């Protein structure tokens, strides 16, 4: 009944379910601790800089779609958007979120509005001006964001989510207008471009941890804890597999192919 060659994968999937759900339940009792992530700790400094320079903060979640395979990265970016919006509201700084997919707009509106309410500045929020749907086409979106950078010269640029070829365009353009930049993506193709240009960088799963790190929400923290358990299992399998293969036994390889 079970499809041959997928039994181990099924077992791992069930194990991951248990780790993640278990992690979320455990986190309700005791929040897991995170290591320091420099980019996220720098967020107040970045927004503070924008306040001093009286220039806006720009936020983008890249080419994220709620229905695609990169949805987890978009969700991670939106989690950070909430936190940055609250900071911006507290410091009296305008934050502008450039939207790629129209379906994200209602979600972003709710996230930012709630952030302003938490900061006690509900009246300061203007969805029409601060959430800008630019285009659903990659390079039209890229050109529009570059235009925003050149015209409004934000003091800080935060890019967290799935980015494609436009990453380099954004990073260089915002550098040119003097913005301090934090970037994060789990799309390995674009990490090098951000690494070379941006001031702070979140690599791969650090963006998933970002929401949990900033919000200290038990569910998110527990989910990260579960993921880390999954990574430990992967590491053990790799280590034992290397030893077994070096010893001439294909036991781990056969297990993975089961």
């Amino acid at each position, binding site marked *: 009944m079970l499809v041959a060659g997928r039994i181990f994968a099924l077992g791992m999937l069930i194990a991951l379910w248990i780790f993640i759900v278990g992690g979320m339940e455990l986190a309700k009792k005791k929040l897991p601790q995170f290591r320091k992530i420099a980019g996220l700790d720098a967020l107040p400094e970045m927004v503070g800089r924008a306040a001093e320079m009286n220039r806006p903060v720009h936020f983008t979640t890249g080419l994220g779609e709620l229905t*695609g*395979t990169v949805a987890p990265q978009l969700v991670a970016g939106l989690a950070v958007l909430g936190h940055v919006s609250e900071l911006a509201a507290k410091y009296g700084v305008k934050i502008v979120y450039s939207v790629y997919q129209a379906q994200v707009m209602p979600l972003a509106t709710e996230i930012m509005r709630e952030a302003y309410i938490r900061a006690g500045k509900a009246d300061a929020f203007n969805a029409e001006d601060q959430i800008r749907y630019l285009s659903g086409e*990659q*390079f039209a979106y890229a050109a529009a964001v570059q235009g925003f950078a050149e015209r409004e010269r934000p003091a800080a640029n935060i890019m967290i989510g799935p980015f*494609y*070829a436009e990453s380099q365009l954004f990073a260089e353009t915002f550098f*040119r207008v003097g913005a301090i930049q934090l970037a994060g993506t789990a*799309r*390995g*193709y674009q990490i090098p471009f951000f690494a070379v240009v941006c001031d702070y960088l979140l690599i791969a799963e650090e963006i998933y941890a970002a929401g949990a790190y900033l919000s200290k929400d038990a569910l998110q923290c527990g989910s990260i804890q579960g993921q880390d358990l999954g990574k430990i299992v992967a590491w053990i399998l790799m280590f034992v597999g290397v030893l077994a293969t070096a010893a001439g036994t294909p036991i781990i390889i056969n297990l993975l192919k089961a």
Partner: protein
Amino acid sequence: MSKQGKGLWRRLEEVPREILYLLIFLAIIVPTISPIGLAVPIGDEARAWYSTIDKLAAGSTVFVDFGYSGGGEPELGPMAVATYHHMLQKKLKVIAMSTSIEGPLLFDKAMAELGPEKYGSKYGVDYIHIGYIAGTETAMAAVGKDLRATTSTDYKQVSLDQYPIMQGIKDASSFQLLICFTTGGDQSEGWVRQWVTPYKTPYIANVLALMIPTMLPYRKAGQLLSLTAGAQAGEVELLVKVPGRGIKSADVISMTHLLMVAFVILGNIAYYGRKASGG
């Protein structure tokens, strides 16, 4: 060192980007207008690409994803054309689809450049395009499971039943090779998950050069039989013996890469010169 010396290093370190852009522009334009004919070595991956297709018997069926956008056409288009030259020379049956919305238009562009009639190939008999199918991985999974349930017409909205090439084509098991030309990692990785893993379809991918490092794990694990960058089109054109845009770009690629290396060296000289002069 004198103040003038310090200023010189700083000026060198802060060369206006317009000058850098002008140099890059010249490195592109000059070899394009006046080709130099620099050497082009044929790498292992280009050879693997060629031999994977070459091993197929005449009449084998290949599935192609035209998954790139207009922005990536200058890089991937020449490779697609060179590959089609090879496949039609070998009398393979080629069924294409697109996971990119611009794919059908770019397919037309590639066919116009290729000229399939020179091989006696006919649309609907030797090659076809079944259109853009939305959904990326959902589309790949659906087509792999049951192609006819996913789409019943080609990109011209003509019923697939009208075309001899579609006889007997049901799902992923109907194909001896899968080729993907894409600018999006979602496509190149998606085919591994949706076709290679469940159906073990042999798979080769042509992607942007910047995507190569991220796709390498699949190549090293054997899930990809060949992984080439669009810039390697010239190498495949040499193997297929049909020179085209790929070979013409080789000089440009050489010159711009050498210029980039020169920029790196110059930037470091300026940096250390400024530091040494106390700047």
